[in-house]
């Protein structure tokens, strides 16, 4: 057990007097990554609110910010802030697991600024010029990769992402190779290397639409239902080791089993995207069977989080981090597991494919699995990066309020979109006289208004989350 050594315990007192040292000084490079992640998260939600309004007031902000631009900003900011979160997590947990300083903290800071500036320029490019102009300015014709969902970044930005990822992996891999090798660091590194390797398929864009879509999923699916789950599992396991004090052997056994089930179900589970895009019909069987099992690793993750917290050997003063860890276990299972299963069987998906049902699943899955696990890591690590084992009681109470506001409003966003999706399928795809797309959309506008209201509550939760970083008070939570 190394937990107790993580932080030199100090008597309760004011924040300023609390002075907990990081175990390794170079872990401090994680801090700017976490701050950038939260900043971009705010941008993502603002554009989400814009889009939500455009769903009901179609010409809102048109032609300044057309829907397609807002969506590109919304989804790309999500991906980039999660990547910042994963990188910050990597820079924080790998030195601690490897029991040595990071190979090159300087390189980590250079990579941070390169990534932040490249990301910001890309977003400015989306907003400032028409997309076709951006494609021309960035030489898309040399190697056309733009204009595909989630991979809208100019080719040169994609190259930049690869370069940043390689410096990150080089830095962390050398640290692990020279230091202690644990299961958590190994799984984290496997996930991060997988992330980089599968991203390379974003450079393959054949004219043949079926092949284009087939390998597009090797980035998108093998990320979010494959290697990202390894990263998530490793981050969750790291935080649970720290906050529960449960024997590392037990936690690492769970971690291996969870990620085994992830890849056993998730790789062939890619087939649930190969039902209707020109690929052979046998994918309907492979995809349905294996993706129906994809909730299993997520359910194991829920059990894992609750089991470890129940068997805890210490009461960590950072209650908020424990709450986020339990929350991500539950919400990932609901969003990715249950809402994924809802429309994954081929006969169901035939009716729901490409409707608001897909959108409902996407929202809760990304929030529950990835947004929440990054926040779990930030919630645990940020107080330590700021020189204290845990935030004061008042700050933690505000953070817990933000947890409940964001999480409950996300449940409602998901439920409203599910209702909209069911009605859309009913009106547009079932029955003898199906309605045209826009006619059906107008009839379900009520649910889009409710979704937008829930989105506003989510935003309030996010503001509270940021406020919690500035609340001062007693440095230890009461027992």
């Amino acid at each position, binding site marked *: 057990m190394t937990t107790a050594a993580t932080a030199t315990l100090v008597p309760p007192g004011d924040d300023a007097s609390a002075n907990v040292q990081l175990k390794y000084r170079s872990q401090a490079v994680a801090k700017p990554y976490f701050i950038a992640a939260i900043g971009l998260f705010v941008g993502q939600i603002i554009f989400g609110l814009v889009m939500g309004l455009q769903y009901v007031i179609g010409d809102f902000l048109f032609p300044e910010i057309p*829907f397609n*631009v807002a969506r590109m900003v919304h989804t790309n900011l999500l991906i980039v802030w999660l990547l910042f979160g994963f990188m910050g997590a990597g820079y924080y947990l790998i030195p601690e697991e490897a029991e040595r300083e990071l190979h090159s903290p300087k390189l980590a800071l250079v990579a941070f600024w390169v990534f932040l500036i490249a990301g910001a320029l890309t977003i400015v490019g989306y907003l400032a010029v028409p997309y076709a102009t951006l494609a*021309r300015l960035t030489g898309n014709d040399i190697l056309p990769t733009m204009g595909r969902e989630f991979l809208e970044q100019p080719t040169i930005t994609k190259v930049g992402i690869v370069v940043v990822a390689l410096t990150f992996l080089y830095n962390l891999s050398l640290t692990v190779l020279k230091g202690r090798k644990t299961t958590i660091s190994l799984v984290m590194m496997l996930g991060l290397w997988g992330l980089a390797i599968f991203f390379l398929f974003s450079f393959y864009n054949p004219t043949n639409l079926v092949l284009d*879509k087939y390998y597009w999923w090797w980035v998108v699916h093998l990320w979010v239902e494959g290697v990202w789950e390894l990263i998530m599992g490793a981050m969750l396991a790291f935080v649970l080791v720290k906050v529960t004090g449960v024997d590392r052997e037990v936690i690492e056994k769970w971690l291996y089993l969870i990620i085994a*089930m992830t890849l056993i179900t998730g790789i062939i589970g890619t087939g649930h995207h190969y039902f209707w895009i020109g690929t052979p019909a046998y994918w309907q069987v492979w995809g349905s069977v294996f993706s129906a099992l994809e909730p299993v690793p997520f359910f194991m993750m829920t059990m894992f989080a609750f089991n470890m917290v129940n068997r805890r050997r210490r009461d960590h003063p950072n209650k908020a981090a424990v709450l986020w860890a339990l929350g991500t276990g539950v919400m990932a299972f609901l969003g990715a597991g249950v809402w994924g299963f809802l429309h994954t069987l081929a006969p169901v998906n035939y009716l729901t494919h490409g409707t608001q049902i*897909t959108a409902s699943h996407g929202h809760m899955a990304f929030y529950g699995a990835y947004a929440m696990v990054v926040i779990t890591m930030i919630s645990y690590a940020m107080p330590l990066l700021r020189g204290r084992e845990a935030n004061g009681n008042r700050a933690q109470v505000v953070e817990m309020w933000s947890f409940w506001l964001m999480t409950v409003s996300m449940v409602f966003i998901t439920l409203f979109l599910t209702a909209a999706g069911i009605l859309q399928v009913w009106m547009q795809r079932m029955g003898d006289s199906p309605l045209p797309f826009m006619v059906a959309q107008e009839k379900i506008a009520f649910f889009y208004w409710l979704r937008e209201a829930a989105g506003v509550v989510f935003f309030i939760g996010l503001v509270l989350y940021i406020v919690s970083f500035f609340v001062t008070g007693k440095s230890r939570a009461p027992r």
Partner: protein
Amino acid sequence: MSASFTKSTARNIFYGGAVFFFLLFLALTFDTTQALPKRDNRANLTEQVARGKNIWETRNCIGCHTLLGEGAYFAPELGNVYQRRGPEFIKAWIKGQPTGAPGRRQMPQFHLNDGELEDLVAFLKYASEIDTNHWPPNIEG
């Protein structure tokens, strides 16, 4: 979990499972690649279609529409729009945007010339003839 079930057993399940199912995935991918020529309408992949796909991508059409059900859910499915509306309607529609109708969802004006419109329509026609296992359920997409 019982004590006899060790971490190394769990690790072996992970590595064995990951390798086995990834190889199975590669085998299925190989078989799919063999089967695609009969399904993906590659016979009609002309230069014009390639130019049309480039226009489709550089105008970020996927940011509002779906194509074979993938994309954004803000505007109609376009995988079968060639059958639903026909080539002339599609061209006239794109030229006439935005409608400017108050409160309605708006599509930008992309300033495509006649040749580019023909290219885009050729791409949508090619896409509409891919064998999608009878998806979408009806013409409304």
